[in-house]
């Protein structure tokens, strides 16, 4: 039993160690400083994506409100630390709880009927948020944006690299926690619901309760990701929290791999890392706005049609292919 648990967590911890070493590697001069920022971005978007995967991957429900709830988390945490002077830890907790409660309210209304009503209701909610973000200057700073600081723990101020390590630790913890409940009666209920709502009901699974739970989880992770965004990028614009961002998060989990914990990080590297690190350096076309969007859009469609399990499985599939060939020879 010990062995199983050990091997199940190993990959998350390994990933964490590699990521946490990056600032040191950067100081030694092997990678650019901007790469750390890019990877920080990859991490908080991966946090959001892990949450959306609980909803879309495991439970088969679509939300288009991800960016809206991220924005709410970002502005709340900024407001609470900057304007009210609350401790970082308290702010981030409130910045997760409040959007989650809002999400539960939306879910309570929209999850009672067909699945796609959630997608449409969250689309509407996100649109309302987007407009409110631009109108509500006192809270969001309007078009001039809202500025936040790096986290502070008990009077100790983090710099960028420490914040990066903090993000990494949080990511690994979330991966382990998510892995735990996905492999319990809760996760099995999600999966059963996804396969067949009738079978789930016959097994005593209360559909509304578990759909609501999945949506609340997705919302909480999104809000957390938003709050982390605020304290790592240290600036939030109302225009950032648009439908395009929600779609990019969907792209992260579809490309990385639905129903996996590692998929979101792989997807996040492809969706947010590749455009920033590789595409933007291409001659001529690299400067063009929208190239990343086309890249991700095309990739989503290709993956859904031809490799529905996601790119996280590529390594094992290639291995399998080689093994097969060897035995054939």
């Amino acid at each position, binding site marked *: 039993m010990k062995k199983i648990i050990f091997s199940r967590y190993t990959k998350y911890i390994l990933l964490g160690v590699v990521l946490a070493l990056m600032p040191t590697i950067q100081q030694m001069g092997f990678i650019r400083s901007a790469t750390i920022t890019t990877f920080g971005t990859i991490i908080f978007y991966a946090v959001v994506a892990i949450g959306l995967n609980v909803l879309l991957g495991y439970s088969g429900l679509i939300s288009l409100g991800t960016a809206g709830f991220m924005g709410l988390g970002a502005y709340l945490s900024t407001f609470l630390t900057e304007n009210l002077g609350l401790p970082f830890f308290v702010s981030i907790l409130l910045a997760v709880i409040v959007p989650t409660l809002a999400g539960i309210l939306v879910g309570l209304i929209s999850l009672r009927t067909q699945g796609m009503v959630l997608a449409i209701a969250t689309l509407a909610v996100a649109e309302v948020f987007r407009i409110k973000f631009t109108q509500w200057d006192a809270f969001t700073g309007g078009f001039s944006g809202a500025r936040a600081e790096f986290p502070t723990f008990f009077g100790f101020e983090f710099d960028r690299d420490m914040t990066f390590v903090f993000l990494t630790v949080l990511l690994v913890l979330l991966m382990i926690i998510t892995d735990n409940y996905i492999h319990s009666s809760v996760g099995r209920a999600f999966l059963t619901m996804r396969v067949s709502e009738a079978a789930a009901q016959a097994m005593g699974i209360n559909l509304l309760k578990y759909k609501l739970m999945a949506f609340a989880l997705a919302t909480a992770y999104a809000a957390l990701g938003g709050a982390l965004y605020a304290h790592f990028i240290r600036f939030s614009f109302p225009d950032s929290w648009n439908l395009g961002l929600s779609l990019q998060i969907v792209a992260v989990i579809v490309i990385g791999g639905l129903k996996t914990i590692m998929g979101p990080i792989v997807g996040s590297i492809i969706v947010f890392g590749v455009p920033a690190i590789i595409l933007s350096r291409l001659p001529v076309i690299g400067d063009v706005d929208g190239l990343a969007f*086309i890249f991700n859009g095309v990739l989503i469609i290709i993956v859904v049609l031809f490799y529905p399990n996601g790119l996280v499985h590529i390594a094992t599939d290639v291995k399998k292919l080689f093994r097969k060939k060897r035995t054939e020879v």
Partner: protein
Amino acid sequence: MSTFFQLIFSGLETGSIYALAALGIIIIFRTSRTTNFAQGAIGMFNCYVATVTLINLEVPVWVAVLVGMLTAFATGVFVDLVIIRRAQKVSSVAKQIITFGIIMIFTGLAPIIFGTMPLSFPRFILQGSLDLFGASISYNGLLNIAIGLLIMGVLFYFLQHTKWGLAVRVTASNDATARLMGVPTSMVTMGAWAIAAALGTLAAIMHAPNISVGVNMMENVQVNAFIAIVFGGFQSFHGPVIAAYIIGLSRNLLLFYGSSTWGEPILYGLILLFIVFRPNGLIGKKIVKKV
């Protein structure tokens, strides 16, 4: 009283835009079981085509509109042939995800091809208005309402009274049976995508003079069109259209008499509450799920 009628007229105009967009979405939903979230993006893209045609070739407005709708038609055919047709075996959730991919492609392409500066598209009729019940309504507004009603009239006539309309309705009710009966369902689906794209583009072009032609121009229209579909019910073609007009009207009234900043959220909230009590919408029939 004149303000009230003014609001009713502008509500009808907005309603026409929502109704055209909603009709496009429901036609695709009914014929290929796909909730097409890319309706707005395709409309936006081809509205750009019309605008650029107008600016660069200096053609009359109606020619530009025609060009935009024709490219939209082609876009619909292309999307169906290249993508949707290959996705027949994937789940409905996966199909929705594919439409997300389509949105990303078009919103990525638009700034590359047309630039990032917002463009403007003029009204069909630049000036002049009609005084009715003390309210003044522009000829352009009247034209928009008339175009909306005319196109929907033609489409409903087509659906109810022609051989092709019958094929669409049969495919909508059961595509497997329709195929067995010799209905060319793949042609029907392709036609649905083409017509939906053209409808979405027309909605975008009618909406364009109120705002400006930009990547996000259709987001608000798309939200309202989807809300109209939820409100009107997924099971009929006319339900969402009626709902779109109701939303157009009540939105304007709420924005004016209620709250200019919270009118829309309140309306969405009310509609979502409505479907808690009537899950199948205004016109929906109760469907018995087979288990």
